[in-house]
């Protein structure tokens, strides 16, 4: 399309001079400007001065990479982690006396949201594991500290990214723990069965401390349907990966009883979890975090599952047990069993520190390069249907970046 015929050709040409210089005009406009510049000395002068400006600007001296930048960046990151850790330890000190424990009973949906955070941060948790190992600090303490730090960071991210059109949730102050549940309480909140929380306490988690970030996120879960799908699926996926299956079923049952908004995606997850859990009922005499069943997650892309398969401890569940659980759940596809077995082996190597960092990184590069698409595994009538999707969905950990 041509620009409208200008009343003052010089003025029009000067307006187009920048885009002419940058090659941003259509062919007819370019030809028109070119013809005008050949005839008009003033406009040619303007054009040449812009051209000269561009040439000189491009020849301006460039700054060097500031000396020692990488070391300073690492040091700053490490210092901030330590500060966060100190802050969290301060937070953890005042556990309420027994008579106030009632105030500590948690909004169960908050806990569910917190579970999302815990699992979503498993990649960072893994990073934290490595840092902890490198610095020879107590591994478990560092893991838990990183987990908490990244949980809070993820809360910020989810809130900032997923809230288009969703009214802001009230934020709990970071201060007094005992006050937080009271402020978080709303008519929809029910209290979670302490029996559900107990296994997590035994595993070293302190569910009370999920409250603050959960308080920010649980209203997001309430508005699940309004969440950006880009955020929704990782949230679901992460949630599946965190709580053990019987707990999830209990959580979803409570969710349904509140009349909270449902979605097809959520219903699909619930159905899957319920089916898996029913199969497990007979044999579940121990806690089986579904985190360890990463590849059984219908929404998890493999690299994420693989990373999420790293547990927050060195707890080992025998390959045979995993296989048995999968078979009991009706998952008999040999490739799934193979994937879980491989994921478990990778996890063991990662967690056990047996794999050197070059090998770990080579593996990750391999995954990035291989995974051009995500595969969303959908279960219909108990049968798995695979569907390839574009590489922009799910989490960012699946695809590689743009080369320059």
């Amino acid at each position, binding site marked *: 399309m041509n*620009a409208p015929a200008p009343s003052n050709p010089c003025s029009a040409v000067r*307006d187009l001079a*920048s*885009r002419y210089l*940058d*090659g*941003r*005009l*259509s*062919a007819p*406009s*370019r*030809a028109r400007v070119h013809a005008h510049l*050949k005839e008009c000395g003033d406009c*040619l002068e303007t*054009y*040449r*001065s812009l051209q*000269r*400006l*561009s040439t000189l*600007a491009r020849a*301006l*001296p*460039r*700054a*060097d*990479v*500031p000396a020692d*930048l*990488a070391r300073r*960046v*690492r040091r*700053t*990151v490490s210092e*901030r982690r330590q500060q966060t850790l100190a802050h969290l330890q301060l937070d953890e000190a005042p556990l309420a006396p027994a008579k106030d424990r009632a105030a500590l009973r948690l909004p169960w949906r908050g806990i569910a949201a917190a579970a999302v955070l815990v699992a979503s941060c498993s990649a960072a948790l*893994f990073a*934290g594991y490595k*840092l902890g190992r490198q610095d020879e600090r107590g591994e478990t303490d560092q893991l838990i500290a990183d987990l908490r730090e990244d949980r809070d960071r993820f809360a910020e991210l989810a809130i900032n990214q997923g809230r288009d059109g969703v009214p802001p949730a009230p934020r709990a102050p970071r201060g007094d723990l005992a006050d937080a549940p009271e402020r978080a309480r709303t008519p929809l909140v029910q209290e979670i069965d302490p029996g559900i929380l107990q296994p997590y306490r035994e595993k070293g988690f302190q569910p009370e401390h999920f409250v603050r970030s959960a308080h920010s996120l649980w209203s997001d879960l309430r508005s699940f349907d309004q969440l950006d799908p880009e955020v929704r699926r990782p949230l679901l996926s992460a949630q599946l990966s965190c709580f053990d299956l019987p707990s999830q079923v209990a959580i979803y049952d409570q969710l349904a009883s509140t009349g909270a908004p449902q979605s097809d995606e959520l219903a699909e997850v619930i159905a899957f979890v319920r089916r898996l859990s029913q199969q497990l009922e007979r044999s579940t005499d121990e806690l089986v975090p579904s985190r360890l069943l990463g590849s059984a997650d219908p929404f998890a892309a493999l690299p994420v599952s693989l990373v999420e398969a790293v547990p927050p401890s060195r707890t080992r569940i025998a390959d045979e047990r995993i296989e048995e659980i999968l078979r009991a759940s009706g998952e008999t596809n040999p*490739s799934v069993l*193979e994937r879980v077995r491989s994921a478990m*082996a990778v996890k063991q*190597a990662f967690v056990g520190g*047996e*794999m050197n*960092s070059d*090998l770990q*990184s*080579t*593996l*990750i*590069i*391999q995954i990035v390069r291989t*995974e051009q698409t995500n595969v969303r595994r959908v279960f219909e009538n108990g049968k798995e249907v695979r569907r390839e999707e574009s590489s922009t969905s799910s989490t*960012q*950990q699946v695809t*590689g*970046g*743009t080369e*320059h």
Partner: protein
Amino acid sequence: MALPFRRVPSPEVAAAPRIDFEALSDGELMQLLVHGDDRALMPIIDRYGGRVRTYLGHVTRDGSWADDLTQEVFVRVFESASTFDPRFAFQVWVFRIARNLAVDLLRRQSTQRKLRDTLEERAAESERQSIRSRAASSPLQGLVEVEFAEHFERALKRLPEIFRTVFVLREVEGLAYEEIAEVVDASPKTVSTRLHRARLQLRKLLSPYLDPFREGHLPSSSSSEGEASEEQES
């Protein structure tokens, strides 16, 4: 989808090839950062440290602030690696972080006007020194270029931040209109308008250096350096 490997190599045969970090794409380096391999930080800093520092020097007009902010940019790259969206070019992401930090800084400074005068004097001298020292070691040591560098800084200082950002990202950093648009959260058309205005203002301020009798030539009327997509500004 199958794993990219059928069997996990056992530790005994874990003779992984030595990783050539320089050969990895920005996206691959970011994945390594996400997964805890902080060796990926160095090549990222090698690629972008100087560029970010150059941009921040021009936009903040203060060498020492630019150094501090450059460090903060890469701290955030490190800390927020998992939030990097690979659909965007890494340079867009990193300049976006840098620009947001610069805008925050300038906003804070503008609330402290008295202090700002002092700061700016210190800043201007600091950046002038920085430019002189950089210019002295620049391969382009022509007198005009060195003089121009100093006058350019003074002229740039008189432009609003958004004009400085758009001009520097285009002319110094070589970003495409669309990439600049992502950095500053505007449309390519708005970027085009701001770039043109920035150029006109700088042309006026730097006219002695832009003498028309110096070399200059018209591109061919049929040439197409970029994508010809725009016609008329609003």
